[in-house]
């Protein structure tokens, strides 16, 4: 696609439910990042995929969070047993390669846990 695509754009879920957020990176981009931005806060790194390497999961806040990237392209971020503090905008970004670090962002998924 022309840009990074995220879905859904908005998600309201009840506390305790599981949610899946999807990111379609730009075709050919080997690096993919997930970030989240809580209201009034900066961007918080969650996870980084680079090609076939093991992902850098150091930013995942708890074991309720997981992400996978299938076939080196589409990525899914899963939050299990959602809590109200999980409410945030979840942003996905991709870049061409490790050597080319300009990252392009999707429009984000606004998650609201009620």
């Amino acid at each position, binding site marked *: 696609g022309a840009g*990074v695509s995220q879905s859904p754009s908005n998600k309201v879920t009840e506390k305790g439910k599981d949610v899946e957020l999807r990111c379609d990176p730009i075709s050919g981009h080997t690096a993919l*990042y997930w970030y989240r931005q809580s209201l009034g806060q900066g*961007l918080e790194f969650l996870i980084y995929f680079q090609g076939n*390497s093991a992902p850098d999961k150091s930013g995942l806040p708890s074991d309720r969070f997981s992400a996978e990237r299938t076939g080196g392209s589409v990525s899914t971020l899963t939050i299990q047993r959602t809590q109200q503090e999980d409410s945030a905008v979840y*942003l996905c970004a991709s*870049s061409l390669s490790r050597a080319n670090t300009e*990252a392009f*962002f*999707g429009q984000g998924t606004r998650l609201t846990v009620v």
Partner: protein
Amino acid sequence: EDKVVQSPLSLVVHEGDTVTLNCSYEVTNFRSLLWYKQEKKAPTFLFMLTSSGIEKKSGRLSSILDKKELFSILNITATQTGDSAIYLCVVANAGGTSYGKLTFGQGTILTVHP
């Protein structure tokens, strides 16, 4: 742990003013520093800096990097209301399994009043 610190965290000016946004960083293996502008949801790319002392310009925006003192500044001259946004400083890592990984600053919220 890699760290990027921006200052000020927020800034309110009037149209026509000139602003300087600051970014300092501590990164084990520096590759590049990027500036993004975030309105609404998705950050958009402004500049990528890899060499010290070379100013990059785009219209009223300019930026420069000092790799010795580990900081960068983003200048905006003759500000306009459309410059109101969050400005993000991002550093890309160049080493080992974190090669290409981006570390974000908290952002500077710029508000330009008419």
